[in-house]
């Protein structure tokens, strides 16, 4: 099917009218739930994600604890009505993999050594999926962690770069993901310049890869600002 679908028009614009280097509209809100210790909502185009954080708290069974750090448990999950075809509520292999890479990204960010013998639980629920759910989820998780008052090295900002009809584009949507040639989600601690998540699903030349990294970084800087504003709105306007 690839190649048959025109994803970049004669004016160099994408199916949703964006320029290649342009992000989708973003909305972020911190502290949206009552029970969770921290929570956040992130909307990126038609992708909508809720995150909740519980902890640091005790774990049962006790033998799961670590003497020198908190353990981190993460669940990335898509609700059945978030997708075009109904998704079974049971975790898929994809969700298990994404929960792992998200957890590993967060482990690089949280000062887990401050809370030995506890768990920090991070839950991400995708309520509407239109590509970029893991990167939106990571941003929601990082905001929810901040909302829960858990010390971090930096916030995480994240975006997926794609290659569609031979062009590198920022923040791909679902059509671009399905019919494009590559999808490269990347998450960073922007202030420290460190990558905490990096995946490439697709084929790129070395040069394209370097270009994609640069494009991602450009988007990440913008998203980082929006994250900081969302936190400010909750914590500094009071």
């Amino acid at each position, binding site marked *: 099917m690839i190649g048959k679908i025109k994803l970049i028009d004669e004016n160099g614009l994408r199916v949703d009218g964006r320029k290649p280097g342009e992000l989708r509209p973003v909305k972020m809100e911190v502290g949206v*739930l009552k*029970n969770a210790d921290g929570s956040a909502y992130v909307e990126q185009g*038609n992708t*909508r994600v*809720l995150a909740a954080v*519980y902890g640091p708290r005790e774990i049962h069974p006790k033998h799961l604890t670590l003497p020198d750090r908190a353990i981190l448990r993460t669940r990335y999950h898509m609700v*059945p009505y978030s997708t075009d075809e*109904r998704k079974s*509520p049971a975790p898929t292999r994809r969700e298990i993999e994404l929960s792992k890479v998200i957890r590993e990204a967060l482990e690089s960010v949280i000062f887990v050594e401050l809370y030995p013998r506890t768990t920090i639980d991070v*839950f991400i629920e995708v309520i509407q999926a239109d590509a970029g759910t893991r990167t939106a989820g990571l941003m929601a998780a990082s905001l929810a962690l901040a909302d829960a008052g858990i010390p971090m090295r930096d916030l995480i900002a994240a975006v997926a770069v794609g290659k569609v009809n031979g062009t590198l584009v920022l923040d791909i949507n679902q059509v671009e993901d399905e019919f494009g040639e590559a999808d490269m989600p990347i998450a960073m601690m922007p202030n420290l310049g460190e990558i905490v998540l990096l995946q490439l699903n697709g084929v790129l030349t070395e040069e394209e890869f370097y270009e994609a990294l640069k494009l991602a970084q450009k988007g990440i800087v913008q998203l980082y600002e929006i994250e900081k504003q969302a936190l400010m709105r909750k914590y500094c306007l009071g």
Partner: protein
Amino acid sequence: MSRLKKSSIVSLIKKGLRVDGRKLNEYREITIIPNYIAKAEGSAYAKIGGTLVIAGLKVGIGTPYPDTPNCGVITVNAEFVPFASPTFEPGPPDENAIELARVIDRSIRELKVIDLEKLAIIPGEKVYILWLDIYVFDHDGNLLDTSMLAAITTLLTARIPKAVIKEDGKTVELNKEVSEPLPITNKVVTVSVGKVNGKFIVDPNIDEEQVLDCRLAISISEDGRIAGMQKMGSGTFALNEVIEAVKIAKEASKTLFDKINEAIRSIRK
């Protein structure tokens, strides 16, 4: 919860008062937002107090059950994800989530809220399959009434793609360009009535749920009939107490129908 807090909730109720200033038969603030999820064929965000439920409807084509060959199929599923409460555990739905889904399912089914016969496409062969998924995202008490609000608003405002029978007379496709509402014939809400020291309250919040002696969930149709009932939790009711609870539920149901109707009107403007 501390013993002190419990006893203060109970003694307030004895006096006809509640910790959050409500009357015994009064609901907390209710918010209903239909069509909350654009990707779903129907959806609703429902909030009662701090309890947040989002329901969504997905539609497919499938084969009917052998004993109802001329009817569409609806499946109601509820999930209490650990997201929503420090006490919820990961894993498949537990007995509480299953009971909630089944109580909602029975009320919808017995009252024929949806005319399932109109959801047959090729009778005996191909019918609409509806999945109604109810997700609890924040648990502040009274999950059942909130879930029912989300569920019923989802059904009332859903638009399902038109089924097109192909030339072979066998294959069916959904045309996502053309949508129509579900064949709705009735409306239902559930009112949970709690008993505390002989007094009755509606819409218990999460703290009040800790002091209930017993709870009766009563489904009421818009024309005031009883469309289902479930005693939930341990504890007992005398016969006359059950009768009193039904009267309270019937009265309280009016507020809920008002909220639903208002939400539906808002999107039809």
